[in-house]
């Protein structure tokens, strides 16, 4: 993956991009004709799609600042004044703060669990020869391609029998289990690339295997952990199917679930502006995380498809 990305320029309304990769004055117009026509054409097409991507998002942000009446009467007009009360209403009355807290708890717990357990399994699978190594590896990897829905029906009853239905920690354990395939896959490849000599030296000096792992290998694996961590953060933050099935207690809802419930029940008391404020609130953390960690996100996500 080439990493030439400059920091994200703000999506200007005009769609006119400026990057630092262009050096020197613009080339003379006397280029080959095909090149010029193509260049105009490319830019035209690309700008149109960029616009189509950004427009719905801008529309959502804009709508979250409008009052209910103008949302319906003129969806495209700018808000007459910025109704910040939509945001505070959504946050307090529409339980967005609870959903947010639930999501933070679930994602925080699962993210830590996924990284710890995933790196332990990956380390062992990558660095030690033992009977069954390949089998266990492929057992984990196989989980990346089968339809989760198939397992979901019995999973509901497994979770139920263990008394973990509608609990935060139950959801955390399930999230970890379903995040392991990709995490193990990614980190196994990563641990294989790390030099063995340092770990061996530590071991010779009398460090135990687990001490070697936690004090030497794990710090060395930091870049890999960050990539896979961001990947899992996005996936777990955006999870919809698992909580929908395993978490039906209204008090335990996560963001995606809570928002869909609000919308299904016609918005709480028909408060559409509050609902839009909630939508935008749920979008902002991931968009922010993406813009900050853009390179790692792309690496993590594309590694999955290129397996």
């Amino acid at each position, binding site marked *: 993956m080439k990493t030439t990305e400059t920091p994200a320029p703000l999506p200007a309304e005009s769609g006119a991009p400026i990057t630092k990769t262009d050096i020197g004055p613009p*080339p003379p117009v006397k280029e080959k004709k095909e090149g010029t026509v193509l260049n105009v054409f490319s830019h035209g097409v690309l700008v149109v799609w960029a616009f189509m*991507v950004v427009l719905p998002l801008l529309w959502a942000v804009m709508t979250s600042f409008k009052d209910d009446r103008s949302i319906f009467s003129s969806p495209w007009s700018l808000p007459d004044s910025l109704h910040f009360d939509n945001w505070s209403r959504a946050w307090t009355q529409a339980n967005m703060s609870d959903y947010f807290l639930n999501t933070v708890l679930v994602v925080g717990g699962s993210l830590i669990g996924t990284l710890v*357990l995933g790196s332990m399994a990956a380390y062992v699978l990558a660095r030690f020869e033992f009977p069954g190594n390949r089998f266990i590896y492929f057992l984990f990897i196989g*989980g990346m391609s089968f339809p989760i*829905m*198939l397992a979901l029906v019995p999973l509901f*009853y497994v979770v139920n029998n263990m008394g973990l239905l509608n609990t935060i920690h139950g959801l955390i354990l399930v999230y970890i*289990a379903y995040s392991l395939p990709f995490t193990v896959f990614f980190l196994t490849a990563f641990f294989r690339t790390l030099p063995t000599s340092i770990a061996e030296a530590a071991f010779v000096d009398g460090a135990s295997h687990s001490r070697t792992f936690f004090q030497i290998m794990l710090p060395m694996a930091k870049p890999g952990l960050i990539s896979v961590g961001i990947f899992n953060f996005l996936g777990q933050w955006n999870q919809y199917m698992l909580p929908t099935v395993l978490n039906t207690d209204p008090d335990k809802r996560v*963001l995606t679930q809570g928002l869909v419930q609000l919308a299904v029940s016609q918005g709480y008391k028909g408060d559409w502006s509050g609902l839009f404020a909630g939508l935008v609130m749920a979008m902002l953390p*991931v968009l922010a995380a993406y813009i900050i960690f853009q390179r790692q996100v792309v690496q993590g996500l594309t590694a999955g498809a290129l397996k």
Partner: protein
Amino acid sequence: MQHGKYRFIVGFLALPLGLYALFVVWPFIQSIYYSFTDWTGLSPEFKMVGFDNYSRMLDDDIFWKSLQHSLLFALLLPVVTISLALFFAFMINVGGRKRRNGPVVTGVRGSSFYKIVYFFPQVLSIAIVALLFAFAYNPDSGAINTLLRGIGLGDVQPLWLGDPDLALWAVMAVLVWSTVGFFVVLFSAGMASIPAEMYEAALLDGANRVTTFFRVTLPLLWDTVQSGWVYMGILALGAESFAVVQIMTTGPGGPDYSTTVMVLYVYQKAFRDGQAAYATTIGVALLVVTLAFAAVVMRLGRRERLEY
């Protein structure tokens, strides 16, 4: 490095493997077993019924409808998405004007900007994207129909999600919108690793960009395209289509079952109708479709591997 090795291995593997076996592998095996029973999911009692669920499935009109829609999702959606993404990625990476002293083939100005923006929908929850577009599709006050009125197309006011002939396409368009960016970035990474000399040689031979694309870029990128296709197909058969259909279309899976898909049908049978065993049967059918899809794409896409 032998001392205490096995104790260490067991200690490190026990917890992750245990969780994975308990919540992923075991339910998966169970579901195949349950498909041969009459389990309702509501009571713990059930008995074996052989292939009853399977023969019932073959007579179930709604199952066939959902299968049809799922196949459309798995076959058409990746074709549209990947074609669009290839087109954009080619523009971004090869569509640039030749600059003085620069390489022969360059990306357009601002290529990194496009890649960043196109990727936005990919990081949003598909549930939130679905909600957003459900509002936009609203026939009276939604953003899309209002926009149509605004540009003088007031006569064209489709019902979108309410129209049985349109609903499925409207839902699929949302998935295209949300996934194209991912593939643009994926293919861009692939295109960036194609050596510039290949393009230079093609251009010297007088090839234009279209020929270059079909003769140089696409063949060299074929492996990536193929795995992207399988990846997208699996998504379209599973979690992604569940979220968009369940959230965007109301009732039993759209007006007159026009948008129902297999995952949604599994969910409804299990958690709404109390027919857990029958649900797992449809789930097994979904597994078969997924595996067959992957096998067919791999088989059709087999080409001689190009080394460069």
